[in-house]
Structure formats: structure tokens, C-alpha cells
């Protein structure tokens, strides 16, 4: 070898340094933005202006920041659910559908209405909506879980197909039974079915006026904490981890895999369903088409980027919330997908740095001859 340096690639045998996973994730995100800037430049855009605009749209004001958190809320809940399923190597790509069904179930409370919207305490109504949302998402998660456990049907395909089914199902109701005077949306919910927003307290605190931040984000934070407890402190979490790492060993240990597959899928779906409830009750205040801007798929990325860690999911969903808020504003609209795809690609590629050690050596003088 005549090069003065050579690269040695070795499988890591020792522990990965603690800072490395974080560094690779951050590096991947930065690189993804650079690549997107390059693409923008190539198609004749102005990357600096676009990204400046991007930053301003997401973090430029309290209102913008609150929008970011509002967008991050469903991503957080969905990301937590997906992360839980991925931990068991179950590919729940169906959060989008579970989100829609959750939103539909929750909307039944004010639309049917299931209780008297005037006299029932707001607290009871909201609790019912949250529970029904989780039930809807959970049941919708049951289908792929059951098909996987009983018939070994690929959950990737079944969840994807169910996404389309859920959207059409939703459309049927908003075009027909629950349509608002023939429009493709339901009437606005009674106020008692709205999650409290900061803007509601504008009379007491001036600064809150126009701030759309709603209670849903608290659901997300609580869920993150609960998932963390389950995964690190409970027997069930231990079972999930074991099945994910080594299903064979788990089976020998007497863990009921069938039951766990279905349960994890249902919990994953329930979290997506809760996200749907939080979105209709906290943001849209009615059921309509396109209540999700691809939350289900972005949630997959969020979970993966957060390395399935519940607390990291909070941070990553915030970043993606910013991406969505800014992405609404920028053209071309596909750039948002492109950045997402690039980030995910780079993150999974960067994992190679965690598994292998790349070292540059000065070639020894004898070898250089």
C-alpha cells in the first residue's frame, strides 16, 4: 500500500461512547438540511432565503412556537406508540389510520351526541372523548396485531392497507351522516368538547391571546413518562424488550408472544387514537378530511430518530413540529417529504458508525515501500 494513510474498519467490541448516538443523529439532521439546500440550489431556489424563512416561520414568535408545539403533539403521541411497537420489532406503519379512527371515535361524543353537551361537565366529556379515541385507535391496532399473531400476515402491509381504509371510512361519515349541510366536514363541536387552550385564558393573562397551545401536549408528556416507566421499570417492559432482542429466548422463558404482539399493537394504536382525539378536540374542533398532515408516517421517523427512547421522542417531535409548521410555508411543497426522507436515510446510515470503528492510521514506513 502506498497511500500515507489507510482506513481500518473494525467491528466495535467495546461499549459505544455515550455521546456518539446523539452526535450521529444531530450530524444526520444537519447533513440532511445541507443536502436539501443543495437540491434547492440546483432547481433554482435560494436555500439561504428559504431556510431563513423556514426558521422564522417556526421560531419567529411566541405564536409560531406555540404552533410548533401544537404540531408536535400528535407526533409525540404517535412516535411513542410506534417506538413501543418497534422495540418489539413490530412495524406499525398504520398510525395514520389509527389516528383517523381515534379521531372518529372521539368525535362521536359531540356529534351523536353521546351525552348532553350542555349539562355534562366539560371534564367528563373530554375524558370520554380521550377514552373513546384510545379505544378506537386500540381496536384498529388490534386488527394488524391479531392478523400478525394468528396468521403471520406482514403487519407492514396490513397496517398500510388499513390506513387507506380508515381514510375512506372517515370520508363516508363526513360526507354523509355527519356532514355539515352537505359540506365535506362535520359541524363544529360544542365548546364543551374543546380541549382548553391558552388563548381561552387571554382575559386573565394578556400574553396568551391568540396562543393556540392546548392541553393535548400534556397528554403527550404524561404518555412519554408512562411509556418510560413501562419500558424500564415493569415486568411487561422487560418482556417487550426480550421479545424484541431475542424472540427465541423469550419463547423459552415462557413469555406469551401472541398476547404481547396483540397488546403492544393495541397500545400503539391507542396512542395514535389519542393523538387523533387531541387533534380534533384541541385544534380542528370538527371532523373533516385531511386532519392529519402525514402524522402517521412522520411519527415513524420521529420514533426512529429518537432511537425509541421516550424522552428523546419529545425533543425529536418538537423538531418535526417545526419542520411541519415551516414546511406549510415553503415551496415547493414536496421539500418537506424530501427532508424527512433524507434525515431518516442518514440516521440509519450513520448507525454504521455505532457498530463499526473507523480509524485512520498512518501507514508504517516499511509498509509504504
Amino acid at each position, binding site marked *: 500500500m502506498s497511500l500515507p494513510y489507510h482506513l481500518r474498519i473494525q467491528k466495535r467490541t467495546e461499549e459505544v461512547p455515550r455521546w456518539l448516538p446523539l452526535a450521529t443523529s444531530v450530524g444526520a439532521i444537519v447533513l440532511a438540511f445541507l443536502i436539501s439546500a443543495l437540491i434547492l440550489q440546483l432547481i433554482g431556489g435560494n436555500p439561504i432565503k428559504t431556510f431563513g424563512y423556514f426558521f422564522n416561520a417556526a421560531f419567529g414568535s411566541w405564536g409560531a412556537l406555540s404552533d410548533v408545539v401544537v404540531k408536535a403533539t400528535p407526533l409525540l403521541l404517535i412516535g411513542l406508540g410506534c417506538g413501543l411497537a418497534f422495540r418489539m420489532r413490530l412495524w406499525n*406503519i398504520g398510525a395514520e389510520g389509527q389516528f383517523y379512527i381515534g379521531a372518529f371515535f372521539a368525535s362521536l361524543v359531540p356529534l351523536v351526541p353521546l351525552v348532553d353537551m350542555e349539562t355534562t361537565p366539560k371534564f367528563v366529556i373530554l375524558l370520554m372523548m380521550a377514552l373513546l379515541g384510545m379505544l378506537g385507535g386500540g381496536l384498529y391496532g388490534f386488527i394488524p396485531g391479531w392478523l400478525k399473531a394468528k396468521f403471520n400476515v406482514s403487519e407492514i*402491509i396490513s397496517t398500510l392497507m388499513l390506513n387507506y381504509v380508515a381514510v375512506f371510512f372517515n*370520508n363516508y361519515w363526513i360526507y354523509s351522516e355527519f356532514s355539515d349541510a352537505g359540506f365535506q366536514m362535520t359541524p363544529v363541536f360544542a365548546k364543551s368538547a374543546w380541549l382548553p387552550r391558552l388563548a381561552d385564558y387571554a382575559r386573565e393573562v394578556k400574553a396568551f391571546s391568540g396562543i393556540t397551545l392546548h392541553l393535548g401536549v400534556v397528554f403527550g408528556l404524561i404518555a412519554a413518562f408512562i411509556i418510560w416507566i413501562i419500558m424500564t421499570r415493569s415486568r411487561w417492559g422487560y418482556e417487550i424488550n426480550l421479545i424484541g432482542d431475542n424472540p427465541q429466548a423469550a419463547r423459552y422463558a415462557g413469555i406469551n408472544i401472541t398476547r404481547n404482539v396483540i397488546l403492544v399493537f393495541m397500545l400503539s394504536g391507542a396512542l395514535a387514537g389519542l393523538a387523533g382525539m387531541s387533534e380534533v378536540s384541541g385544534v380542528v374542533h370538527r371532523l373533516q378530511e385531511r386532519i392529519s398532515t402525514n402524522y402517521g408516517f412522520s411519527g415513524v421517523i420521529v420514533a426512529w430518530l429518537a432511537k425509541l427512547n421516550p424522552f428523546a421522542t419529545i425533543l425529536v417531535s418538537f423538531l418535526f413540529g417545526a419542520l411541519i409548521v415551516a414546511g406549510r410555508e415553503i*415551496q415547493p411543497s414536496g421539500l418537506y417529504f424530501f*427532508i424527512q426522507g433524507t434525515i431518516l436515510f442518514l440516521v440509519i*446510515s450513520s448507525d454504521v458508525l455505532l457498530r463499526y470503528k473507523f480509524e485512520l492510521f498512518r501507514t508504517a514506513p516499511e509498509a509504504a515501500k
Partner: protein
Amino acid sequence: MSLEIILRSGLSTGTILLFAAIGEILTELAGIQNLGVEGMMLLGAMAAFKTALATGSPWLGLLAGIAAGGLLSLAHALVTIHFQADQVVSGLSLTFLGTGLALVLGEGLTGQNAPLITNATIPLLSKIPWLGRIFFADLNILVYIGYLLIPISWWYINKTRPGMHLRAVGEKPAAADSLGINVYGVRYLYTFVGGCLAGLAGAAISIAISPGWYSNLTTSGQGWIAVALVIFAQWNPLRAALGGYLFGMLRRFMLDLQGPMLLFGLRNPFFYNHNLVFFLQMMPFVLTIIALVWGSASARRLRIGAPAALGIPYVRGERG
């Protein structure tokens, strides 16, 4: 609603699924699962449409579509083969990447009219009574190319030496490696071929069978259906073709159900309540799930499984 129309429409739209599914079969036989079919198709559709529009030649468009799908698939190949990343996640990101890239580069193509690949009639075969009129008359040229691809791919996979190598790499890469087969090379090759065929499938949509660029509605989930079809077909191109055509026919049938006022002598609910059509639109996706349940059950009974090394990265010298 006539049988003839349903059959012919099934052959046309089925061709799209057939290209994508056979491509994915080749990729999966090499042990690489590429879930990015939808993204590769969309990018292929965009590239084909844009190129045909710019050059005035639909055939150049077709080539561009094939190349776009193939190039995108190389990203998946690099990440899963050399970096040993998870194939499911990589395939999903490929879908995002392809979709995003197609939408960015496809800005402003909606509503334009590109030159299209035309229909053709096969001289002698179309004279066969009834069958000729259905299978060989006035169909898109790509449909005929699809006819040819089915036996060729089957023969290639099952009867030729490179086909044998392909299956060996997907079943037992270590053994294939010890016989001197270049495992990484084979995997790269068939991931690329699969991408090219997905690109072709996309091009078949945008410049041939249902022409136009409608951003991400151009493919509207057909890439995913193609992936499902592969499992249903148990990695057999003949079954994939049959499934693709059947699926195309069902789609047309669902569409035709909405037309008549009477259905089998009864009031047609879809005619009188148009909103029920949403349930018809669900059907292709519901049927895909049912087909999967059925497919996995029969695969288990016949002990046909996925290629043994599907989804598992190969590292020389490691167990497996």
C-alpha cells in the same frame, strides 16, 4: 358493465402492478426487501412524464423513468448492503425520499400533456376469435411487454444459472459466497433491477396507461399493493402476474358498479347513495389484506416461505 371491458381494463392496469411486483420479487429473491416501491414508482412516473414532455419522445421518457427508479434503489442498496441498516426502515425512508423528490422536481407538471406511448394491435394474434380481440387488440404496447416479461422472468429465475445464483444468495448467502458467487454484487444488481422495474411501472402510469401527473395521487398506493402482491404470489412471477391482472379487473369492476341504476335486478345502492362509494374505494385495500391472509395460510401449508435470508444483512465470516 361488460366482461370484455373489465378484462381489458384489468390487463391494462394490472400491467402496472405486474412490473412493480416482478421487480420486487427479483429484489427479494436476492434477500433484500425494498419497501420503497411506492417512492420509486412515483419518481419513475415523474421522470418519465417530465422527460417525455421535454424531449417529445415517450420512449426517452420511459428510459428516464426506468433509470430514475433504478438510481433511487441504489440508495437502498448501499444503506442495507454495505451499512447493514434495517431494511424496513430504509425502505420506508426510500418512499419518503422518492415521494419528496418527485414532488419537488415535478412542480408544475400537473395539467400538461406529454407525448404518450400508444396502443397497438398484434397482427396475427388479434385475429383469434374473441380472445384475440381481448388480449391482443388495441392495448398499450407496455401491456404486451408485460406479457413477455412474465415467462421470461419465470424462466430466468428457475431455469438459468444466474437465476440459480440469485436464489442461492437469497436463501443461503454464506454458501453462495463459498461457491464464489459475489453476494454483495448480486444483491446490488437485483436491487437495481427491482428499482428499474418499479420505475418502469411508474412510467407505465404517467405516460401510457393512465397518463398524466397528479403529484402523489399518480401512484395512489399501488406501490404498496405491489409489495403485498409479492407475498401473495409467493415469490412466483406467474402468480404475481395473475394477481396483478385480477386486481386490475376488480378495480374496474368496483368502478363499474357505480354506474347502473339496477344491480342484479335490485336497486343499486351505490347509484342512489353516492357516499357508499367510499366503501367501494376501500375494497382494493381490504381485498389485499384478505389475499395476504389467504396467501400466508397457503404458504404455511405448502411450506413455501420467504427467501430464508430475506431482510438479513450478510457479513462475510459472521454466523449464518
